[in-house]
């Protein structure tokens, strides 16, 4: 087995036994990137020298007998919406193309404390807004299983990098499915933890009440390893929850006997691709064979999830992205020509014109669309009908999950209704792209954890994902179910035909 095929857990054992060095592992990842990333386009920035230097430092400390962190010597890729001090953090936007943050995100602090090797920054939909990574202003990412198809998004670069074996571990962010959906479409394991489980400090904000950072890996065991390093209370993120982080990896071996799994009948209704349905149902049989019992539960408001999400997320985005004003950091239009249209005269001055030209030039079409949608929904006369209404429906959606979880330990179903779509297929139809999020937005609105694991392939050789969701802070249960599933199946070990 080549070094890049090893799981993170396997590599850790090899490192500890002295059979491989951190430098060798890093070189193997870099060689894989060199061999394939010109076609896949997973990375926006590869930290070649810095990564090798970090790896060499870890090898020296290991040789000196120093105690090392839990990820010592493993290469990790980071979605490029997380701050890395002094190094470009672009959010795949022209607005931040040259931005170098003055501080590290808390997850970066934690990765460094765990002695991980940060190998580079991965591509995403601009400001994490999108489901295909096609909204990136800085590069195109292709699905390693079929280079004519999208990797999903918005953490498409992280998912593609893991699938293409360029890294064993990657960090993504999930606001409406942005970890689970690309994980599903790229055939890897990806988890959105409970809201508040991982600090968001230094994650460039998109929709603050929905954003959550989480792990992508090829196995649930590796995802457990990475989540354990990332999770925990951060006094500098007031929404992070002061709650002990379990030793996720230790609980994985516990059998699933007696686990109650719920399915939602509507998720298997019209619109679900027949091959996706067959694979997901086969996945349910695997869970049953492992001792789980399956029963139907109801999420009566799930059909309203996408509409609720596409009010709340753009509202929060329009507020969060107000900070890109051309004054503090990022792109600024130097045009001195005033903006002139029917409405601008009333507030026409050089500062307003600078804002408007800067934002017009710095943001791409999808980001503008969401800012516009959010501004509209929050504007006078519409606030109650849209934003407040959506927040009320959000509570109904949360209550649905609470009731379902009174009956079952986990929910299982598809991640998306079909496998990876072609590049360009949905870019001109925003609503069609939004509907891809149907099965994933619920977890963000309710704040619960969810995981996507490979459960099969369609006739075109494209991966199919199984989503498991759990009550708040039941990541242990999710990871255990995913791990047990992976001991009984080998979908997660298939390699893309690069």
């Amino acid at each position: 087995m080549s070094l890049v095929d090893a799981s993170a857990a396997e590599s850790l054992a090899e490192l500890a036994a002295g059979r491989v060095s951190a430098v060798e592992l890093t070189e193997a990842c870099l060689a894989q990137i060199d061999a394939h990333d010109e076609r896949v386009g997973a990375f926006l920035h590869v930290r070649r020298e810095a990564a090798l230097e970090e790896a060499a430092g870890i090898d020296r400390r290991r040789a000196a007998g120093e105690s090392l962190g839990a990820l010592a010597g493993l290469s990790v890729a980071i979605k490029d919406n997380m701050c890395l001090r002094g190094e470009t953090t672009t959010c795949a936007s022209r607005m931040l193309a040259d931005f170098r943050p003055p501080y590290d995100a808390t997850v970066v602090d934690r990765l460094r404390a765990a002695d991980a090797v940060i190998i580079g920054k991965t591509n995403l939909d601009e400001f994490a807004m999108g489901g295909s990574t096609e909204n990136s202003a800085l590069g195109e990412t292709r699905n390693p299983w079929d280079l004519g198809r999208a990797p999903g998004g918005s953490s498409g670069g992280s998912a593609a990098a893991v699938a293409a074996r360029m890294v064993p571990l990657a960090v993504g962010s999930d606001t409406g499915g942005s970890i689970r959906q690309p994980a599903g479409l790229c055939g890897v394991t990806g988890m959105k933890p409970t809201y508040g489980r991982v600090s968001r400090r230094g994650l460039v904000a998109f929709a603050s009440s929905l954003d959550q950072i989480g792990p992508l890996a090829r196995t649930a065991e590796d995802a457990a390893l990475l989540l354990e390093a990332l999770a925990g209370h951060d006094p500098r993120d007031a929404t992070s929850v002061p709650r002990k982080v379990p030793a996720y990896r230790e609980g994985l071996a516990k059998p699933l006997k007696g686990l109650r799994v719920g399915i939602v009948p509507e998720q298997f209704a019209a619109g679900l691709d027949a091959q996706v349905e067959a694979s997901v149902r086969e996945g349910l049989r695997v869970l049953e064979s492992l001792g789980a019992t399956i029963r139907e539960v109801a999420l009566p408001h799930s059909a309203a999830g996408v509409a609720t999400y596409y009010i709340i997320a753009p509202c929060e985005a329009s507020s969060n992205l107000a900070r890109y004003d051309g004054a503090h950091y990022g792109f600024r239009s130097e045009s001195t020509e005033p903006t002139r249209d029917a409405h601008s005269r009333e507030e026409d001055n050089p500062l307003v014109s600078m804002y408007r030209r800067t934002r017009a030039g710095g943001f791409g079409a999808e980001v503008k669309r969401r800012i516009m949608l959010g501004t509209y929904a929050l504007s006078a006369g519409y606030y109650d009908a849209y934003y407040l209404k959506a927040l009320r429906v959000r509570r109904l959606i949360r209550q649905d999950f609470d009731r379902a979880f009174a009956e079952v330990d986990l929910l299982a179903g598809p991640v998306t209704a079909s496998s990876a779509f072609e590049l360009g297929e949905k870019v001109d139809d925003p609503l069609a792209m939004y509907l891809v999020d149907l099965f994933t937005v619920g977890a963000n609105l309710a704040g619960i954890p969810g995981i996507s694991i490979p459960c099969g392939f369609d006739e075109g050789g494209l991966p199919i994902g199984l989503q498991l969701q759990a009550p708040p802070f039941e990541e242990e249960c999710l990871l255990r179910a995913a791990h047990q599933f992976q001991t009984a199946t080998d979908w997660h070990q298939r390699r893309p035909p690069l």
Partner: protein
Amino acid sequence: MALTRADVEKVALLARLSLGEDEVELLTAQLGDIVRYVDQLAELNTEGVEPLAHAVELTNVFREDEVEASLPREDALASAPRQDGECYLVPAVLGE
């Protein structure tokens, strides 16, 4: 509710965006489609349902009011498109 060009232009000003003619046209159609889709929420009965702004309903988080090191001014200004070592520079708003 149908969205008009005038709505789009007004919202663009509120959002501090400047849109080209073609963008106004495209966004009027696209935002109209999206708004029609999200209008389905109006059919749900939410009477007596409290809004849920955050999934984890934390109460206020306080810390001791102690002076701590903050971002040095130099670092805060380092990424600014225009600055003079002390302040961010923006186009003048008031006259001479």
